[in-house]
């Protein structure tokens, strides 16, 4: 944290932040229809599902784990929401139930990883399929669209004629909480230690399994919240909502400089990565790039994002090594 201004400047998360600004400026200048408030509110609104899940996903990846089932949990939560709504339950009851269900989904992932010692990659590929399957069983191929208007308006609307969607405000609160938890609280500090060396963390008295269980549970909860938001934002609860969203989330988080091997990264970087991805998708749609080509771009970004921080780290390690060498021989 106390690196020189130069060293800070080459950190990958600041690189991504700068890249985001450049992309935004170029888009304002050269892409027709980008700069108006309505488009910007679309950009933000469409990016919010990625951003919401990216919050716990960042913490999870920092701790050396991953959850690929988040999009399925979101889909399941949407499907349950639709099914219960069809049953005539009030939305005020349904939403807490959906969130609870998401927490349970996350808890199951967490228990499989921490109690049975299975790799989270494998566990959550399994639950990715399982949760999506349950969603389909529950809702079939129905689409539930007739949610109360004030909820739909909140999820899809913006504040007056500004570019700010209503939903951005609660997201900013959640972002602030996540930043504090990861970067200022003991919990976050222990996550970095776990991700960098789980064994050393255990030998330092950190309750590794408990921390991971909490994280998986919160991730499930946030995925369910995203599922609720998705169904309201697009006014459609279907079993296949948010399919493939996990790829976008992970691409964005890695793009933001969170090390896939754990132990490194900042939430600022991750969120910059999320909105960089969101902006690129928005621009590509505006200039009529096909959906298939957009996926190619996401894939390339994913590879670049795994590669980039590594190159940056080589540079900074070499620099630190020289510094230490400079100090040791003069004892």
């Amino acid at each position, binding site marked *: 944290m106390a690196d020189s201004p130069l060293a800070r400047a080459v950190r990958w998360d600041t690189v991504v932040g700068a890249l985001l600004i450049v992309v935004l400026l170029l888009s304002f200048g050269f892409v027709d229809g980008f700069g108006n408030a309505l488009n910007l509110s679309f950009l933000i609104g469409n990016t919010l599902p990625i951003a919401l899940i990216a919050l716990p996903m960042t913490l999870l990846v920092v701790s050396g784990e991953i959850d690929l089932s988040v999009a399925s949990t979101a889909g399941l939560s949407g499907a349950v929401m639709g099914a219960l709504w069809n049953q005539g339950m009030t939305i005020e009851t349904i939403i807490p139930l959906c969130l609870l269900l998401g927490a349970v989904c996350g808890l199951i992932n967490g228990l499989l990883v921490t109690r049975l010692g299975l790799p989270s990659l494998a566990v959550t590929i399994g639950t990715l399929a399982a949760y999506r399957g349950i969603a389909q069983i529950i809702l079939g191929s129905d689409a539930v669209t007739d949610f109360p208007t004030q909820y739909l308006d909140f999820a899809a609307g913006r504040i007056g004629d500004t570019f700010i969607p209503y939903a951005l405000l609660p997201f900013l609160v959640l972002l602030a909480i996540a930043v504090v938890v990861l970067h200022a609280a003991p919990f976050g500090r*222990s996550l970095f*230690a776990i991700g960098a060396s789980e064994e*050393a963390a*255990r030998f330092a008295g950190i309750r590794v399994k408990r921390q991971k269980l909490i994280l998986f549970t919160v991730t499930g909860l946030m995925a369910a919240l995203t599922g609720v938001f998705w169904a309201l934002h697009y006014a459609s609860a279907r079993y296949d909502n948010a399919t493939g969203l996990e790829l976008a989330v992970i691409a964005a988080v890695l793009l933001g400089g969170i090390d896939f091997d754990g132990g490194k990264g900042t939430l600022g970087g991750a969120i910059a990565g999320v909105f960089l991805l969101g902006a690129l998708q928005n621009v590509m749609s505006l200039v009529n790039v096909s959906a298939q080509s957009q996926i190619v771009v996401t894939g390339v970004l994913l590879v670049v994002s795994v590669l980039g921080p590594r190159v940056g780290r080589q540079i900074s390690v070499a620099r630190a090594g020289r510094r230490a060498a*400079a*100090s040791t*021989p003069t*004892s």
Partner: protein
Amino acid sequence: MTHRSDTGPAPVLALKDISKSFGAVRALRDVSLELFPGEVHALAGENGAGKSTLIKTLAGVHRPDAGQVLLDGEPTVFHGPADARDAGIAVIYQEPTLFPDLSIAENIFMGRQPRRALGRIDHKATHAATVALMQRLGVELDPDRPARGLSIADQQIVEIAKALSFDARVLIMDEPTAALTGSEVARLFGVVRTLREQGAAVLFISHRLEEIFQICQRVTTLRDGAWISSEPLDGMTEDDLVRRMVGRDLDELYPKQEVQAGEVAMSVRRLTREGVFTDVSFDVRRGEIVGLAGLVGAGRTEVARAVFGVDRWDAGEVEVDGKALTNGAPSTAMAAGLALVPEDRRAQGLVMDMSIERNIGLTGLRTTVKAGLMDRGAERSRSLDWAVKLQVKYARIADTVNTLSGGNQQKVVLAKWLATAPKVLIVDEPTRGIDVGTKAEVHRLLSQLAADGVAVLMISSDLPEILGMADRVLVMHEGRLTAEIPRSEATEESVMAAATGRAAA
């Protein structure tokens, strides 16, 4: 091949007035070294003296800024490790890197296996060549055994065999004994003697002085990157060598203070972990240093791990300061006042990619907290305090610990645990692989802690350390405590007898 260096042929490999700088740092200054065939040459020096840089220069990894590398008396430039290898120079590192899924023979001949028609690998010839190499070394290892599961000692033998297969004339062994047991060291030395008799030149690096005297004929000493001396070991004492390495008379290596033992601080009762250790009971009192001796694999480390809670125990109980510890919960052990400086500082003691500050801070995640958030000011001053108290040599407290030397890393581990103000401190191999100067500092520190009323349990495979520091020696053999020997009666013989199960305790 029994030439003495002063009358014999030209050195097979020599460095003449070598200097090497990294940035502003002069790692080597006008260093000279001559390696003769049929001789084992020791390279001595504290951590940071320039030994690694010198080895890397010999191995073609670094190119010197000034000075010459002479091969058979001819000036040579190595453009890379491959050049050095082709010139017959091989380096055996402390921890070899073999392909675990390939056989020993395949590892030795990787990439240059004997071929049959159509380019197929000739397994028979590979096998036979490996058998021949093992015979030359006087070692029995099955060439077809996969490398996975080989002990570090066996892996080193494979590396040496590989070096021989390249017709290596110069063998550089970088702390080969650091992770070996006594009998493995003896076997390795047998191999080294065989190589010496066959005319190889060996450069041997070790922190264990007695090994240098055991196996080497001459020694070159480095201090702070400068050449200090090259001389025969005949007639030198360990004290002479230490003086050359540290540049002063070392205060006593085992500065044990006499302390009156106080009340029991930790009590271990009938602790059992099935298949690992059985029915282990002992007390450690305030002010006491209790040594825990035994052969590697006797279960000492495992007892420490279970007591601290990293592993679970199956039966028994542990009390620290009168409070019973929870099975398998390091956090409650810490809260009760227990600290464990683990055996493997790189994997267990430290998060290598984290800063010195944060590593020390890891044990303060519950204490350096204000309103539920990290109190960064308190964390920094706590870390700085302890880093300074233990005289850790670092550039900046925010540098990652992997930039530090082994001895300084160990000090950071100690700092991390002393910052918790423990009542009971367990140290597992506290001075393994660190230089003699730092070793003395660690001993002084442990002695001072005991004098201040901390109960210390010291696990060590270094017998002189156990005998020099411990008030009482507990000995384990095959998972059981076999002896408890008071300081006055503890000798190498009595401890080893109990450790090998020969004594009626």
